[in-house]
C-alpha cells in the first residue's frame, strides 16, 4: 500500500523545473509513440519541436497562433489566482469577435476611413468590451444569486456560439454569398496592421507581449493584485484584512473577459477578416491548459502559449510530412497536462510504502 505524504517543504527549484520536466517526459513518451506507430522518432520529434521554429513563415505562424492563447490565459490566470473559476473564455472570445467584427462590418458598410492608429484601437476596444460584457453576466449571477461561475461561464459559451450562428446565418449574412454562412469580407482599412511583411503576423502579437509585462506588474506589484491573491489563497484572511470578495470577483471576471474578447477581436480583424461560425477553434479552452502549464505566471504563460501553439502546428506538420494521425496532437496536450500534474504532486508529496493494510483499512 502506497500513501502520499506531504513533504515538509517542497523544493523551490523543482517547482520551477516541473513544467520542463513534464515537457521532457512528454517528449520521451512521444518518441515512444512514434516508434509504436512505425515512424522514426527523431523525425517525429522534429516535426513537433523543431519544424515549427524553422524559418520566418513558420515562426510567424507559431506567434500568430500563440497570441490568442496567451491573451486568454493571462486573463484566466488572474481569475484562477483569485479562486474564481471562469472556464468560459471561449464564449468571451466569441463575443469579442462578434463586437469587433460588427464594428468592422459597420465601418465597411459606411465606408469609414481613418488611419490605422485610430481604427485598430477602436476595433480592439470593441472586442475587449464585448468579452467583458459576457463575463459580467457571470459575475452578476455569481454576485447576486451565488450561481456557480463554473457552470454559468461554461454554458454561456454555447449561448455565444448560437448568437454568432444567428448573426452569420441571418443578420450579417453576405448577400452575395449563395446563402452560405459568412459575413462579407471586412474592408481593408479595418484589418490589423501587419508586423512582419509577407506573413499573417499582426500587431496583436506585440500587444500580447506588452500585456504580459502589464499583467506581471498587476499581479505581483499592485495593491489590487495582492488583494486578489490573498482572496484566492485564503478567503478568511482576505475578509479579516477587509478586502472585498465582491470586488475581487468582479475584477477577475471583467479582466479575463476583456482579455478573451481582445483575443477574439484580433482573430476576427487579423487572419480571418470576416465572421463565420468557426471563429474560434477552441482557443478559450486550450488557454486553460496554457494557464496551468505556465504556472499562472505571465512569463510562464508566454512560454507555454508558444509551446502549445507549436504542438498544434506540429500536429499539422506531422501529418503532412510524416503521415502521423491528427489525434496525436490531442494526446500530447493531454500527456503534458497530466505529467505536469503528476510532477507537481510528487514535488509537494512523497510516495511512501506503508506496508500491507488490513482488509477494510484502505479507506482512501
Amino acid at each position, binding site marked *: 500500500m502506497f500513501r502520499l505524504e506531504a*513533504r515538509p*517543504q517542497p*523544493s523551490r527549484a*523543482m517547482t520551477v523545473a516541473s513544467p520542463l*520536466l513534464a515537457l*521532457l*517526459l512528454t*517528449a*520521451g513518451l512521444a*518518441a*515512444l509513440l512514434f*516508434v509504436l506507430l512505425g515512424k*522514426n*522518432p*527523431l*523525425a517525429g520529434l522534429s516535426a513537433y519541436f523543431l519544424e515549427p521554429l524553422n524559418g520566418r*513563415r513558420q515562426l510567424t*505562424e507559431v506567434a*500568430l*497562433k500563440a497570441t490568442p492563447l496567451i491573451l486568454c490565459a493571462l486573463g484566466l490566470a488572474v481569475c484562477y489566482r483569485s479562486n474564481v473559476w471562469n472556464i468560459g473564455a471561449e464564449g468571451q472570445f466569441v463575443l469579442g469577435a462578434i463586437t469587433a467584427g460588427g464594428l468592422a462590418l459597420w465601418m465597411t458598410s459606411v465606408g469609414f476611413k481613418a488611419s490605422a492608429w485610430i481604427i485598430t484601437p477602436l476595433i480592439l476596444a470593441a472586442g475587449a468590451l464585448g468579452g467583458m460584457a459576457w463575463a459580467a453576466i457571470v459575475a452578476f449571477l455569481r454576485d447576486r444569486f451565488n450561481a456557480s461561475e463554473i457552470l454559468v461561464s461554461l454554458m454561456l459559451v454555447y449561448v455565444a456560439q448560437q448568437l454568432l*450562428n*444567428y448573426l452569420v*446565418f*441571418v443578420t450579417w449574412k453576405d448577400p452575395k454569398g*449563395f*446563402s*452560405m*454562412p*459568412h459575413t462579407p*469580407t471586412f474592408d481593408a482599412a479595418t484589418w490589423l496592421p501587419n508586423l512582419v511583411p509577407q506573413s*499573417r503576423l499582426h500587431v496583436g502579437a506585440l500587444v500580447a507581449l506588452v500585456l504580459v509585462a502589464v499583467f506581471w506588474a498587476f499581479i505581483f506589484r499592485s495593491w489590487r493584485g495582492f488583494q486578489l491573491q490573498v482572496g484566492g489563497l485564503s478567503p478568511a484572511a482576505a475578509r479579516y484584512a477587509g478586502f472585498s470578495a465582491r470586488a475581487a470577483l468582479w475584477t477577475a471576471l471583467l479582466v479575463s473577459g476583456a482579455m478573451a474578447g481582445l483575443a477574439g477581436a484580433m*482573430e476576427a480583424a*487579423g*487572419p*480571418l*477578416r*470576416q465572421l*463565420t*461560425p*468557426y*471563429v474560434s*477553434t477552441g482557443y478559450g479552452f486550450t488557454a486553460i491548459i496554457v494557464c496551468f502549464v505556465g504556472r499562472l505566471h505571465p512569463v510562464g504563460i508566454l512560454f507555454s502559449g508558444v509551446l502549445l501553439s507549436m504542438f*498544434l*502546428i506540429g500536429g*499539422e*506538420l506531422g*501529418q*503532412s*510530412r*510524416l*503521415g502521423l*494521425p*491528427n*489525434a496525436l496532437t490531442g494526446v500530447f496536450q493531454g500527456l503534458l497536462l497530466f505529467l505536469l500534474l503528476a510532477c507537481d504532486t510528487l514535488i509537494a508529496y*512523497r510516495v511512501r510504502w506503508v506496508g500491507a493494510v488490513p482488509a477494510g483499512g484502505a479507506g482512501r
Partner: protein
Amino acid sequence: MTEMNKRFLLKVAAGAIAVAALAGCGKSEPPKAPEPAKKAEAAPPPPPKPEPLKAAWVYVGPVGDAGWTFAHDNGRKAVEAEYGDKIKTTFVEKVPYGADAERVIRDLAAQGNKIIFATSFGYMEPMLKVAGEFPDIKFEHATGYKTAPNMRIYDSSFYQDAYMAGIIAGKMSKTGTIGFVGSFPIPEVLRNINAFTLGAQTVNPKIKTKVVWVSTWFDPPKEAEAAQSLINGGADVLLQNTDSTAVLQTAEKNGKFAFGWDSDMSAFAPKAHLASAIVDWSGYYKRAIKEVMDNTWKTERTVLGVKEGANDLIKIADVVPEDIRKKVAEVKDGMKAGTFEVFTGPVLDNTGKERLAKDAKADQAWKDKVDFYVKGVDGKIPAAK
C-alpha cells in the same frame, strides 16, 4: 530535501536514458530521407528519373469518419493506385475552418505540392488567399463558389441520391412521417431535404418530412440525439446530411429504417439499412491529376452526378419491394441519360408559393440558390428571415 533531489535526478536520468535509447534506435534505422521540398523545384534539366508529382488533400473530418472525408480519401487512394510512383500524395485531416486552414494550405503549397484539394466549403476564403500567392500551383475546392485562374471548384449532386432514397422512404414509412438530420441550412443541404421529400411524395403524396438541425458535419452523439428526437416525433425512416454512422445506428436501436450517407454503411446497421447514398470522387481526382501532368488543367466548375458515375444509391436492402426497386432503377437510368431532372416544375415551397413554374427544369443557378423547404416539409428553416 537531498533525498528528494536524488529521486528527481534518478527520474530525470531514467527519462534521459529512455530518450537516448529511442534516439539511438531511431538512428540505427535507415533514415527515411525527409525529401526536402526544394529539391523538386531546383532540377529543371531533364532528370534521369522524373520526380513524382506531389498532390495534397485537406480534410475537414477524420479519414475514419466512414462518411464525407472517408469518401474523399478513397478518391486519393484511387489516384495512388492509378499513378503509382509517378505521384506522391499527402493529406491533413481534421483541419478546422478559418485561420488554421490557411496555414495548412500555405504550408502544403510551400512543400512543393503541385495540386491541392480542399474538400469542404469552409476552406474557400483561405484557399483563395493562398492561391493568389502561388500562381504555379493548382488549387481545387469542393462545394464552393469562388474561382481564380489557378483555383477551380467541383461538387457532387447528392440531391439525386436523396431523391432515390426518398422513393424508398415513401414506401417503407408506416407512419407517413420521415425524418432528416441536417447539418447547416445551406443550399446544398436544403436541396437534399427537398429532393428526399419530393422522392417520397412520388410514392405517398401525403408524406411529411421533419427536420432537425445539428450545426455540425461530424458529431456522432449530437447526430444520434437528433435522430432519436425525430423518431420520438413519429418519423420511422431517416436520412442525414452528416458524416457519421450515428443516425443509422440510432434507427437500428429503435427498430426503424435509415440510409447510409457518403459511403456504404450497410455493415453498421444490418436491419435498419435501406440503401447507401454514395459519391465516388476517384474519377474526378484521376482526371485532375492527369490534367496537371499533361499541362491541360484550366479553371472551371465541375458538377458531378449520377451521370458522371460519381453519385449513386447502392446496396438497396432486401426488404424493399420489387416495384420500388424498379422505380428507383428507372429514375437512375433517367439521371444517367440526363433526361430526368429531380427539380421539375411545378415546385411549391411549404408556404404554398411557386418556386419553379410548371414543366420548367431547374438550372444550376436555381439549384445554387435554394433557400426554402418544399411543400411537405414541416417547419421553418432556422435563421431564415
